[in-house]
């Protein structure tokens, strides 16, 4: 087909607008589904129009459509089956695919220009170089993040002396090879540069511990966007540039939000070494005592409360206790208790993860509140039930200047009249610090598996 080039540009512009409107839809759960559909429409338009592009030979269309179909055959079942607790892994591996595609299309584009005998300027080679290196780091970095999140690799940071020097040396080498490629146009330099960038992706992510994974997943989200943008520069395609920039800024903002929620600087996170086993072992018993509560007592207090706030943490998800928590919520609401949920930004393993886990358990989103929305409500709350959360309710973050989590915004659970903490043992959380809340006068511990405890609470409420 011989359509005017402006028609393609126009279709790509409309697709860009669809993506922007799609993201805008996510400002509320009520409009979010329409937003996603809008983004799908943008993608269908962009891909459909590209298939009709004059440079796409009809003879090659079978390959293109076959590739698309193969992607659907692999992607659809995964999307339908993945457990919501496994979302961080899925997102990490999908980021790696964008990175890989950027590497492949970057090298492919250069080979195409070469074969076609096009004049290749320095700007183009730099564009290829940048697109390929961001893609390569995104690819292997995301594969490592996937390994850590899915438990295939240990989540503890891998730290060795000279690590930062090694990373710096690799980065310098990568740029050097990139410059050599830009000057000589010799593909050997491009391949060497790609290999170094692939290694750098691994060495950059291995020192980062499990606790910092929400930041890393967000950061790789951002990188995958920049990789798409760089590819857009390479192909002079504004759709890729714009879409990549949208995704890149999204990931950057999420990284910032996660860092702020942990009171850690972004640089500190990417230098790594935080949240390891040594840190956890460093916490020592201080001789203070906690009070254990019986389930029956907790049920009595919950049933007679006017206002209850539940603070869920990742421990709740690990124990698969979401549905038991929902039952408990329904029963309490049936008795006229005002039940709300308070979510800390880093409650899950990626931004917003806990909200999805609660939504999956059919807990309505309008009783689920963010830290800023609900933190002033704790003083007027009769009972706060903390399930599998630890560091995010530790008052030491506000009071103890020597604490590693000092300055981190926390949920003021300790200000509720009575606090019940459901916990397996007295083992400290990710940050490896003692939780002062457990020793407070108004706090009682309910030891046990979160699911079993919530089922017993719900069972006792039914009777």
């Amino acid at each position, binding site marked *: 087909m011989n359509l005017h080039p402006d028609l393609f540009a126009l279709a790509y512009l409309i697709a860009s607008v669809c993506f922007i409107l799609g993201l805008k839809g996510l400002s509320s759960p009520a409009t*979010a589904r329409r*937003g996603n559909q809008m983004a799908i429409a943008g993608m269908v338009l962009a891909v459909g129009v590209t298939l009709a592009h004059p440079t796409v030979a009809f003879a090659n269309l079978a390959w293109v459509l076959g590739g698309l179909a193969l992607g659907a055959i692999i992607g659809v079942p995964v999307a339908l089956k993945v457990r919501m607790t496994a979302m961080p892994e899925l997102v990490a591996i999908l980021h790696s695919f964008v990175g890989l595609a950027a590497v492949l299309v970057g090298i492919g584009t250069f080979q195409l220009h070469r074969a076609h005998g096009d004049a290749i300027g320095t*700007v183009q080679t730099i564009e290829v170089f940048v697109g390929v290196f961001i893609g390569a780091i995104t690819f292997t970095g995301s594969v490592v993040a996937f390994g850590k999140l899915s438990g295939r690799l240990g989540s503890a940071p891998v730290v060795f002396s000279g690590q930062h020097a090694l990373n710096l040396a690799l980065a310098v080498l990568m740029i050097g090879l990139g410059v050599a490629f830009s000057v000589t146009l010799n593909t050997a330099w491009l391949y060497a540069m790609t290999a170094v960038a692939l290694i750098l992706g691994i060495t950059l992510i291995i020192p980062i511990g499990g606790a910092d994974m929400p930041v890393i997943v967000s950061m790789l*989200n951002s990188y995958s966007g920049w*990789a798409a*943008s760089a590819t857009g520069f390479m192909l002079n395609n504004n759709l*890729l540039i714009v879409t990549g920039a949208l995704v*890149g800024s999204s990931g950057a903002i999420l990284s910032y939000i996660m860092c702020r929620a942990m009171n850690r600087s972004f640089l500190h996170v990417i230098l790594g070494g935080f949240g390891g086993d040594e840190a956890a072992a460093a916490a020592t018993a201080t001789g203070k005592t906690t009070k254990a509560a019986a389930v029956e007592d907790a049920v009595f207090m919950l049933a007679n409360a006017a206002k209850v706030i539940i603070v869920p943490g990742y421990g709740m998800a690990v124990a698969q206790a979401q549905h038991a928590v929902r039952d408990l919520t329904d029963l309490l609401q049936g008795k006229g208790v005002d039940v709300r949920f308070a979510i800390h930004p880093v409650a899950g393993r990626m931004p917003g993860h806990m909200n999805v886990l609660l939504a999956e358990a059919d807990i*309505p989103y309008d009783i689920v509140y963010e830290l800023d929305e609900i933190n002033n409500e704790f003083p007027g709350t009769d009972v706060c039930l903390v399930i599998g959360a630890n560091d995010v309710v530790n008052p030491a973050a506000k009071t103890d200047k020597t604490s590693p989590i000092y300055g981190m915004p926390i949920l003021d659970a300790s200000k509720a009249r009575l606090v019940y903490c459901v916990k397996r043992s007295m083992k400290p959380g990710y940050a490896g610090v003692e939780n002062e809340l457990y020793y407070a006068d108004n706090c009682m511990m309910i030891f046990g598996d979160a699911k079993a405890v919530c089922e017993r609470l719900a069972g006792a409420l039914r009777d």
Partner: protein
Amino acid sequence: MNPVLLLAAAETASVSPFMTGLFAFVLACFVGYHVIWNVTPALHTPLMSVTNAISAIILVGCILVCGNEASPLSARVLAFVGLVVASINVFGGFLVTQRMLAMYKRKG
């Protein structure tokens, strides 16, 4: 500021392709900044999965290289592999987002 009009302006500017691209890029960063801060924190996970799906727009680049007659076989094979993985992202990303968003329900 209407981002749509500004992007349209970027499309028609008749300067070097790099500058046109840079124009669109910088403006899109601002648009992204404002749009993303408006996303409710409750939807940050679907935000990540949907941005993941749309970053697979790189698919367009893969199609242009894979489908191009002038592409040597090696380039076509590389782009084909890129096309498959990006397509996994498109289908998987949008579908899992839709699945998650369907779970968000109001009271009653």
